[in-house]
């Protein structure tokens, strides 16, 4: 891993954080505001998590003494990454952190859903656990609501705890207008067109209502029966559906319909 090389690279850019963000493989991370890091309250408990915590924190905030030994520096870089990752996990579930990640989401910095019928829906990073060193980062698709592994091994080795289990779901909770439509690509349209289509369809809503949404608006949206619009792939042999798969798909759709009925009944009860 060439990324683990040296801490002295920080000479090349102004701050440790900007060096970290610009190094290869760290594209998923966003910049944590300095005052968030400097507020000790936000770091509660992290001193147990990270060895050499004070020095690691100094390194992140560029206030490390220059006379620290070189051997320590090497391991300190590792600890600083861990510390930054854990702070990052806390930061991206704050209001300001969410907006920063939202920008990256809109730029599709986290890649796009590999599922064909998701029409290149941008993804969001998520962890399977909040404890470091357990599971690598995964990508959540808001359209099919499923998890995918990052394409590149560069990203496949990032710790999932640096993003946490909560982030993407909190994002859609806070910005309900950003919940992707469930419909797939438009029939007969090449994938690219339809994806830009669906995004441009959404965009006006995003921009006008994003502010409202943050204040708790967007009550008019109903997502009870959005699943009906979801497209799915139907395996066929010479045009005929495959028995066992067709049966499974009917069962799944019956489950879906029952959920929709349940949700619509709830909606009627509470207008």
């Amino acid at each position, binding site marked *: 891993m060439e990324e683990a090389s040296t801490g002295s690279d920080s000479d090349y850019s102004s701050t440790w954080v900007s060096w970290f963000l610009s190094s290869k493989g760290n594209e998923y991370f966003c910049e944590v505001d300095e005052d968030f890091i400097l*507020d000790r309250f936000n770091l509660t408990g992290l001193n147990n998590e990270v060895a050499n915590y004070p020095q690691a924190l100094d390194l992140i905030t560029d206030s490390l003494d220059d006379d620290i030994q070189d051997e320590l520096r090497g391991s300190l870089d590792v600890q600083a990454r861990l510390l930054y990752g854990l702070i990052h996990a806390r930061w991206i579930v*704050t209001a300001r952190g969410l907006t920063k990640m939202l920008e990256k989401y809109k730029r599709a910095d986290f890649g796009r859903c590999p599922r064909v019928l998701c029409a290149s829906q941008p993804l969001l990073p998520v962890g399977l656990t909040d404890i470091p060193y357990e599971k690598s980062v995964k990508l959540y698709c808001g359209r099919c609501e499923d998890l995918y592994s990052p394409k590149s091994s560069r990203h496949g080795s990032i710790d999932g705890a640096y993003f946490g289990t909560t982030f993407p*779901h909190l994002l859609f*909770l806070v910005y309900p207008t950003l919940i992707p439509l469930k419909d797939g690509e438009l029939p007969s349209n090449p994938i690219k067109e339809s994806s830009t289509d669906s995004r441009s369809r959404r965009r006006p809503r995003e921009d006008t209502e994003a502010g409202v949404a943050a204040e708790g608006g967007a009550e008019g949206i109903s*997502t009870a029966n959005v699943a009906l619009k979801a497209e799915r792939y139907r395996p066929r*042999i010479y045009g005929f559906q495959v028995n066992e798969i067709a*049966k499974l798909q009917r069962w799944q759709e019956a489950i879906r319909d029952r959920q929709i009925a349940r949700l619509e009944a709830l909606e009627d009860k509470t207008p």
Partner: protein
Amino acid sequence: MASRQKSPATDAQQPPGEDEVASGNGEGDEIMEEAEEQEDGYTSSTPTSTLTWISWFCSLPGHEYFCEVTEDFIEDDFNLTGLNAMVPFWKEAMEMVLDVEPEDEDTSKIPDVSIVESSAEMLYGLVHQRYILTRAGLQAMADKYESGVFGSCPRVYCVGCNVVPCGRVDIPGSDTVKLFCPNCNDIFVPPSSRFQGVDGAFFGTTFAHLFFQTYRELSPAPFWRAPSAGGSPLSPRSVSGSNGSRASPFNNPNPHGGQKRAAGYVYVPRIYGFKVSERAKSGPRMQWLRLRPETPEELDMVDWRGRWINGDDGYDDDDEEEEEDRQMEDFDPEAAEGEDDDDEEEEEEDEAVGTTPMKGQKSGKQAGSDPLTRTPGPVRSVRTSPTASEGPRSLDDKPLIDLSVYTLPSFGQSFGEGKVRTVRQWAPRTDWAGTAEV
């Protein structure tokens, strides 16, 4: 990078005529380096080497998914019925594919060798679509499948299930090749852009499914029950490992159905350890897409129009599930909102700490009563949620304390010891990077 990835592919294609390919490998590499000079590479290399056009074509970068069609299949006119209407320069293309020396008169008629080249590619692709539906073709593709040439499903809970190439239409020129995962029955875009030039029709709509009908032991069954170790805390954690260790041999009562144990976990979104309620606008809407029944009999509870045969009442399990959901819903939005506020008003943390534990307790009661109501069918809740059995233990129990720590509940007092341990685990990090590929 292309050349690195290419070598395993060519290895997999070696069986026919080892000598040829061994000498051919070098050729292939050269051609790859000068990928643009395909025609030149073709004309200059083929006559002098023993590499056939077919093995050369299959060794090109991006053509890893193709298997080598036997020449006698191509030479049998019956197999080509109807294709001559679709391929321009039919005769020349045939000669090129079969490495027949063209007669001089013919070459003069051809305006540009690259046109014949693309005709040959089209011809080979269409023949390939038919060939991989034959017994020999299926076998050739099965060999490639088992060696993992087609890659694996990007979906996390398919746990690296191998995929097969498929097309969405049988007519060339309309869509590129896709990958079909037999576990989630869905199609995916190949991870590398070099497959974006490969026509999906060269694999066809039928192959992927005929393949899994033929090799039923490779096809995951449509039902799935969470590993019976519902009580053991370890099993759900190692989702990736759960596939490997199985107690009993798997058997699908339907002899024509998939005979492989499915990877059935479905992702359950959580906010601070709590499931997102389906009553929330952002609540789960798509879990049905990946859900499997626990038993094959449940599949028969839906008629051909997709309706429940006995009405909803006959379906006990799910009534339970609904009740369970309702209980969750009672506290979910509340808890979630509480958290929300915390985030937006970090400074007022003291107050928030004052209020959230209340909520935590309230929810705690419900979460506490929840497992009780769940006990009749504990497996079910495990089934719908991959992390559920991890959840009730690590999350539903702990958040009662952890909720009060404002953003990341799990880092705080409760993991004090664990932390020290994990720090020392820096070295094994590569291990989980390995499991991450899964």
